[in-house]
């Protein structure tokens, strides 16, 4: 015959607090299980956006150089196409990083770590070739010095290697990236650059050279 009101109040209070605790656990764990709305800094999405931006930037630079070194319309047109395409794609990738609130550089993390194949080693030995396919500073200087057919052949060779490295990295994103629009862009890079590799092989043949 403990006061009935006391007992009601006690039972109600306990029941409400059980509901609150259960609710709190549900809210906290549900948010944890959900896929993150934006990629985090260690994701393939962020890693690819960062690394491919660097890779692309060199292709843009090489294309501007060769346009200053030859009058050949076919090579100048190809270089114009590559410079515009890759500068625009680079802007897309940097824009995504901005929208995801992620840095453009994760200092201390080797390139391509997101692919499970970090590029490490003696920095001096790399001479500016930070990732597979990239040209060294020495090779870029050689391109700046060359002119005419010599510059065209050098450009086509350097860009063929650049595209091969680029295709390989883009395939990594096609496999690992979680953002659809980014995976689609990566697949587009694979398709377009493979087709340009064939085109460049043809252009090299016409100049009596090979890749």
């Amino acid at each position, binding site marked *: 015959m403990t006061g009935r009101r006391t007992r009601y109040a*006690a039972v109600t209070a306990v029941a*409400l607090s059980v509901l609150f605790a259960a609710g709190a656990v549900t809210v*906290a764990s549900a948010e944890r299980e959900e896929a993150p709305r934006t990629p985090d800094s260690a994701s393939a999405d962020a890693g690819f956006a960062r690394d491919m931006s660097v890779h692309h930037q060199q292709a843009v630079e090489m294309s501007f150089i060769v346009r200053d070194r030859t009058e050949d319309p076919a090579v100048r047109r190809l270089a114009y196409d590559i410079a515009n395409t890759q500068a625009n794609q680079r802007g897309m990738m*940097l824009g995504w990083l901005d929208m995801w609130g992620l840095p453009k550089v994760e*200092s201390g993390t080797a390139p391509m770590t997101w692919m499970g194949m970090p590029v490490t080693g003696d*920095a001096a030995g790399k001479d500016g070739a930070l990732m597979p396919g990239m040209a060294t500073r020495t090779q870029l200087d050689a391109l700046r010095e060359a002119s005419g057919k010599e510059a065209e052949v050098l450009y086509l060779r350097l860009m063929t290697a650049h595209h091969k490295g680029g295709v390989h990295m883009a395939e990594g994103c096609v496999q690992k990236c979680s953002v659809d629009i980014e995976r689609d862009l990566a697949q587009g890079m694979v398709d377009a650059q493979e087709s340009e590799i064939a085109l460049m092989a043809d252009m090299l043949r016409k100049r009596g050279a090979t890749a």
Partner: protein
Amino acid sequence: MAANRSTSADRRARIEEMRRAEQARERRNRFLTIGVSAVVVLSLVGFGTFVLMKKSDEEDAKAAAAKAPISGEKSWDAAKLGRNHVETAVKYDMKPPVGGDHHPVWLNCDGDVYDKAVPEVNAVHSLEHGAVWVTYTKKAAEADVKKLKDKVSDTPYTLMSPVDDQSGAIMLSAWGKQVTVDSASDPRVDAFFTKYVQGKQTPEPGAACTGGVGADGMGGAGMGQ
């Protein structure tokens, strides 16, 4: 009668005693019920609150780590830093300069390492394009300088050069931002790079670190832009 009276008085006393005992038991039970349920309620509410706060703390910690100021970093109001292109000498308020009017041609900052002093008016233009500029004096240890040169040459949108008359032995600058670090392995080096290489402070995102002026003072493709 006296016996009867005493018996009835005894019974009343016993009844009174039993009633008191009953009341005491009831009081005890009520305290027990209130006490136990209060403990249960408090612990459940406490647990629930803890779970929610832990969750939000984890999120706050992540957000805070990204935004945390770098210890010892100096900032200037970006709105007050000039951005005009001038071909005359410019007097800057800080050394090395972190912003202000500058030469029309940027200094190449594609991981470029300069062994000699560079013109400030060109380097400031590189900061406007999102570069981080590493500078050092003769007081900086040789091993630190070597390590920083390797790091800079591995990082597009950075550049490095000696500045003999700056206050710190090793300083890092970005547009409107500057920090003096103790050594090449100071964790603030990575933090500064991560935060400011093409970071939010960049007045002209997407602008180039190639095609400007190089160590030889010769302009590249973008000369004069």
